[in-house]
């Protein structure tokens, strides 16, 4: 039965086997299979092969208000095509100083060295849904190097409202006792 379980599990895509393979084999070993069940497994495996990779899994998420701004700290397991997951950690701090702002973004992707980006922006003219900001961006490399870029960027003002809305929904969900994944799924199904 163990051989049959392993053989049947091989019909499924790699991402699926990585997540469910072990428990699925245990179930097959416990069950008395009929011919119909075998067809059911093949059909289910084909269905899974037509699906894309699964959703990211939010391991932790925290959002805090700070003077003139807020912080967001997250770690997310991103599914990879080979069935493995990559941990992405991110820390973001935004400070609004009225006519200017400062954002700090610090993140790491899997085993790659962490990257830090510091942006100072001066809010420019507003035209409809867009603003034109003059920004200075500093990319602080893990080897101690600094790349400096100055540019005028067009910012979408609606983005701020959307992001603030999302942050509020996360906070309300956390207060209601939901896990970050449950909040993520709820937001995704609502949009």
């Amino acid at each position, binding site marked *: 039965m163990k051989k049959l379980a392993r053989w049947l599990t091989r019909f499924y895509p790699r991402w699926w086997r990585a997540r469910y393979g072990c428990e699925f084999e245990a179930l097959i070993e416990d069950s008395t*299979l009929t011919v119909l*069940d075998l067809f059911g*497994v093949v059909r289910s495996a084909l269905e899974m092969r037509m699906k894309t990779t699964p959703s990211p899994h939010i391991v932790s998420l925290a959002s805090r208000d700070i003077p003139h701004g807020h912080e967001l700290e997250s770690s997310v397991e991103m599914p990879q095509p080979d069935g493995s997951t990559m941990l992405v950690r991110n820390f973001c701090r935004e400070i609004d100083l009225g006519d200017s702002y400062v954002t700090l973004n610090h993140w790491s992707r899997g085993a790659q060295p962490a990257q830090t980006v510091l942006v100072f922006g001066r809010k420019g003219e507003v035209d409809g849904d867009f603003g034109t900001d003059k920004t200075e961006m500093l990319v602080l490399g893990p080897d101690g190097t600094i790349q400096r870029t100055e540019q005028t960027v067009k910012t979408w003002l609606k983005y701020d409202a959307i992001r603030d809305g999302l942050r509020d929904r996360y906070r309300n969900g956390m207060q*209601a006792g*939901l896990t970050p994944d449950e909040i993520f*799924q709820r937001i995704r*199904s609502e949009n």
Partner: protein
Amino acid sequence: MSDPTLLVLASLAEGDKHGYAMMEDIHHFAGVRLGPGTLYGAITRLEQRGWIRAVKSTEDRRQPYTLTVDGRRHLEEQLSDWNQIVRTGLKRLKHA
């Protein structure tokens, strides 16, 4: 009601269960025998929608699952819809 995802949710409404226990329970309360492929197809969809989640287990390979808050809400909505259909159907049969 033979939608495998609803059967799984209804089974987990009683308490956390692993795959084999779900199969047995569903057979017992609904008279439907879900095969392993159908069961795990439903588990995959439900977990991706955030309606169930895996819980820590002392057993090595058998993975138990639990209903999430959203899963419970979805099940309640679905059962309420079914209840309405059943009541309407029975009422109409009486008057037919």
